[in-house]
């Protein structure tokens, strides 16, 4: 549905996006993650046809985003960051106006507006001015405006920025409902939101795609998927560490300072291996160590994200050095 081939965008000497390629299939819900300035919004703008790529090719449903821009835009529903709206308009009038921009008129327009208001749960504020609404409601009006023409592709840029926790929960549940029957690209800083909503995530940093895949697969594939935490007391810390490192089910260990004579090991399980706790326990017994704690710990998307961004930064500094 959305295809980017080696797409790049330069603003003068600044390379905002540097050769990005990915394909998003029909009905997929994809999260676009990355720090500020990573190139996410520029990439979105190239997909929506607002910006032309400096090189490469972007298509939506096989249509070129620049040469066939108006046809592409008729397929898209787009909610920009901070949901810019006309504060002086009433909610219903605004949606009628938006539907008009997509060529709708008469009864079909009235029905589409009603449907969008019901889906986004804003029918109760239809007569209120947009500028008088809470931020959560304004966000939902922005979503309704993006949906009013029943687009096949929905692009949401930071849809929960600036909302309070209850508004975030409401908006997140709404996004999950909307995701059901259309291709969706969700740009966000909030990792749990992306993890819960999206089938797939693409991590951007330094204008490039740094990681792309299902959240669980990415975490697992990075070697940070499963870890054990061991807290033990032993006379010979080095011997125990090397014994644990030697286990087949272990791919690496980090030794941390503990409490008094107690030491703490973070032990990464080898990908595809069985639970390493039994083997670690036996290694402790063999070394004569006293174990206070041995438990499994799952790595989070947040840790994976931070590792990915740090690695991208490191590569960039090495390249420029």
């Amino acid at each position: 549905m959305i295809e980017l081939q080696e797409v790049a965008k330069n603003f003068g000497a600044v390379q905002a996006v540097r050769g990005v390629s990915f394909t998003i299939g029909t009905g997929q819900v994809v999260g676009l993650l990355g720090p500020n300035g990573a190139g996410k919004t520029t990439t979105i703008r190239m997909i929506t046809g607002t910006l032309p790529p400096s090189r490469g090719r972007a298509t939506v449903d096989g249509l070129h985003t620049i040469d066939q821009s108006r046809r592409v835009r008729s397929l898209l529903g787009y909610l920009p960051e901070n949901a810019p709206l006309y504060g002086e308009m009433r909610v219903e009038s605004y949606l009628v106006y938006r539907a008009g921009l997509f060529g709708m008129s008469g009864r079909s327009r009235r029905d589409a507006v009603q449907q969008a208001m019901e889906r986004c749960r804003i029918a109760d504020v239809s007569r209120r001015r947009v500028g008088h609404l809470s931020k959560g409601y304004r966000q939902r009006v922005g979503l309704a405006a993006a949906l009013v023409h029943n687009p096949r592709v929905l692009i949401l840029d930071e849809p929960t920025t600036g909302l309070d926790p209850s508004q975030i929960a409401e908006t997140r549940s709404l996004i999950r409902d909307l995701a059901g029957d259309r291709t969706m690209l969700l740009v966000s800083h909030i990792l749990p939101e992306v993890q819960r909503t999206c089938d797939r995530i693409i991590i951007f940093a330094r204008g490039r795609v740094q990681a792309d895949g299902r959240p669980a697969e990415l975490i697992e594939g990075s070697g940070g998927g499963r870890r054990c935490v061991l807290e033990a007391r032993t006379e010979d810390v080095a011997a125990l560490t090397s014994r644990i490192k030697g286990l087949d089910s272990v791919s690496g260990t980090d030794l941390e300072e503990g409490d008094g004579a107690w030491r703490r090991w973070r032990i990464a399980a080898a990908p595809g291996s069985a639970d390493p706790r039994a083997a670690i326990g036996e290694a402790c017994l063999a070394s004569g160590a006293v174990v206070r704690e041995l438990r499994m710990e799952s790595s989070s998307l947040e840790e994976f994200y931070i590792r990915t961004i740090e690695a991208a930064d490191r590569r960039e500094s090495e390249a420029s050095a």
Partner: protein
Amino acid sequence: MTALLSITRREWAAYFRTSIGWVVIALYLLLCGIWMSASTIRPGEPATLRIFFTMSQALLLMVAPAISMKLVSEELRTGTIEPLMTSPVSDWHIIAGKYFGAVCFLLTMFAPTVLYAVLLEIIAEPDYGPILSGYLGLFLLGMLYVSVGLLMSAFTENQIVSFLGTLFFFLLLWFMTTQGAQYVGPPLDERLYALSPYTRIDDFAKGVIDTGHVVFFLAASTWFVVAAVVVLESRRWR
């Protein structure tokens, strides 16, 4: 067509949803009303609206920048330009819709002044030829001024800069086509005089509809609207 109408209607209605439309209309009608009662609706004065048209032309120098300053600037400042530019409407539709919305507002502002003609009819026997041509001239001048304001507004997201830029353009045009033309002398002065909307508009108030003048106002307005489209379009290529 539906999209163009939607933008036009929204722009026109936006003047009345905020205070700017009401304030501009109130001040314009107040000043015109005072001027009319002080100079035209008096015993012994000719039953014409020439003084009203002269007054309106002067007021338009302030009114046009005030109503056009927000047309694109506000969209750029608030970010509402992004949903507009990602909907399937051309930049032509966006600019033309905004322009027609502002021109419709001008017509709404002029509409109550028809009462002056009714008043003249009650107390005297006015000649309707100069009145109709005067309104045509006023409308064409308004169209031109709004098109200049629209272009200025497409350049900046700051409404004050847009207002001042438009006003400065009018003053520069006035200077170039009066003092400037006298200073450069023949043969260039003739060309500068030909660019003056101020001299052309006088003929309309006298009851003369010169096709050349009509074409001048329509062509100049179109030029500024097209330039605004180009400026908006260039934002997609930055």
